[in-house]
């Protein structure tokens, strides 16, 4: 597979150099098969070594890295017959949130998810994956439709937060998210959510309540970004690196805390090194998870969903 385009992260630089060297040698054709194999082995060993030493901040860098697959990349690769549904029927259509019908294997599902942009123009159009109230309301409208037709909901979480803007406040950003939390708690179809990149705060949770919460290996999920946390405590983002460890935002941390159900492994080096492999892995996981959820009686599922969130509080009694 080709070396992912830059900008490269500092810690992946040695691997990038080695991978480029292999590419060059292959191009010139001056290398034997066994030498390629040995160099590939070296590259993989290096990637494993780097992966084993990734800090929480490194994971955030990976979660935000250019070239990482976005919601629509997964939708197009894993699902078939996608029909995008636009608009909240109240105010407008929010391109930062994509919703639609799609087929996973033989099963029709409802997709909701935040969408980031690849280039500057698209990033601006998608508002960097920061949804406005109409985005959350569109997602809710589609989820209620899913309930009506008995379709499971698959939610792709990838947002640096709900949009903190003037219009968002005027149109009730808080209310929009709150209503989603309430309705998703009792929606009578299975809800499967997966954090594919960034899962920041209420903006992530606003489409993140459900029966199973999965997280890609290098995604992050938390109540606030380390930069914002640093800004609150110190007035600037200077402590973001150490805070990202303190705040327990990685997939491993959240599995240990019992907040997520399953970690989805990424290709060596991260999803951007081999997007096709990532689609294949996540596709298989989604099919397996949906099949399992479909097999559970909905009342039992809702009971379990309620118990899960009720048990999230950690406290003492004295």
């Amino acid at each position, binding site marked *: 597979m080709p070396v992912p385009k830059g900008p490269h992260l500092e810690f992946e630089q040695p691997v990038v150099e080695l991978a480029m060297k292999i590419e060059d040698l292959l191009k010139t054709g001056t290398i034997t098969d066994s030498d390629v194999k040995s160099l590939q082995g070296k590259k993989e060993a290096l990637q494993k070594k780097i992966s084993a030493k990734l800090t929480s901040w490194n994971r955030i860098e990976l979660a935000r890295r250019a070239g990482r697959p976005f919601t629509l990349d997964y939708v197009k690769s894993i699902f078939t017959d996608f029909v995008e549904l636009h608009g909240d029927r109240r105010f407008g259509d929010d391109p930062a949130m994509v919703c639609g019908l799609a087929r996973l294997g033989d099963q029709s599902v409802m997709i909701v998810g935040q969408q980031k942009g690849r280039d500057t123009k698209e990033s601006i159009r998608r508002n960097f994956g920061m949804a406005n109230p109409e985005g959350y309301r569109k997602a809710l409208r589609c989820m209620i439709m899913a309930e009506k037709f008995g379709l499971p909901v698959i939610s792709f979480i990838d947002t640096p937060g709900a949009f903190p803007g003037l219009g968002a406040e005027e149109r009730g950003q808080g209310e929009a998210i709150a209503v989603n939390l309430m309705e998703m708690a009792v929606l009578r179809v299975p809800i499967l959510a997966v954090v594919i990149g960034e899962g920041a705060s209420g903006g992530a949770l606003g489409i993140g309540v459900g029966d199973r919460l999965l997280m890609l290996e290098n995604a992050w999920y938390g109540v606030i970004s380390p930069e914002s946390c640093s800004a609150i405590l110190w007035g600037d983002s200077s402590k973001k690196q150490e805070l990202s460890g303190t705040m327990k935002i990685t997939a491993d941390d959240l599995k240990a805390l019992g907040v997520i159900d399953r970690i989805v492994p990424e290709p060596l080096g991260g999803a951007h090194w081999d997007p096709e492999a990532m689609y294949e892995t996540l596709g298989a996981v989604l099919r397996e998870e949906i099949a399992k959820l479909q097999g559970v009686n909905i009342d039992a599922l809702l009971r379990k969903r309620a118990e899960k969130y009720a048990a999230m509080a950690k406290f003492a*009694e004295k």
Partner: protein
Amino acid sequence: MEWFRKAKSGIGTLIKKDTPADLWVKCDGCKEVLYRKELAQHLHVCDHCGHHFRIGAAEYVRILVDAGTWFPMDTTLRSVDPLKFVAKKKYKDSIQEAEKKTGAASGVLSGTGKIEGRPVALGVMDFRFIGGSMGSVEGEKIARVFRKALRDKVPAIIVSASGGARMQEGVLSLMQMASTSAEIARMRDAGLPFLSILTNPTMGGVTASFAMLGDVHIAEPGSLIGFAGERVIRETIRQQLPPGFQRAEFLLEKGFVDLIAPRPELKATVARVLGHLYPG
């Protein structure tokens, strides 16, 4: 979540200013010097300009609940430090300081009582307890207010005063938004009223969960109510915010609160709404 800082220096704090002992306070609204005893009699509302001074959870209980009917619940629930959070300050130390300052074990005072003879389950957030932020205990106590209301078949009332989710408990505090909101869906199914009273400030994860899910939203005049903090919005849109932005009156205009009730009318307003929704 940065209303923390703003709220500290902001409106509603009782300040001493070169007046003998604790007898006098200066109003943050109109700068008038007020006699403290009189201010208390007026429920900590300035009789010159109507400015609402911030009050604690116990005072809201005194204002709302009929004398002799209050039974507190879950008073023994206390915060733990699930992330072992140490940043500028140890979370453990913040908890201890808050406990000392408020004499309470958490940022929510909850219980059952009667409002003009009508039984209710009531939870009140205390801004003095780590900025009223919602950690596990606070979320749990609020969820239990709804569960108690469901068991006893009585209305639930929450008085919010909060900067939002408590970042020192990380994603666990975020999850409290989900667990509290879920209970309100069950209140709806049971046909029980939930009245959300929004006081200064009600922000972030509290606004984005139970505080905005009331059948009726009653705000105190001038309260700051919103999702994102002012600094974040200013830095994002790079323009000044209009005067009165995110104040109770702004939310009334935009359609997110039902009515604004000055503190002296709060109890009667709640009772009147309950009289219509749940005559019992």
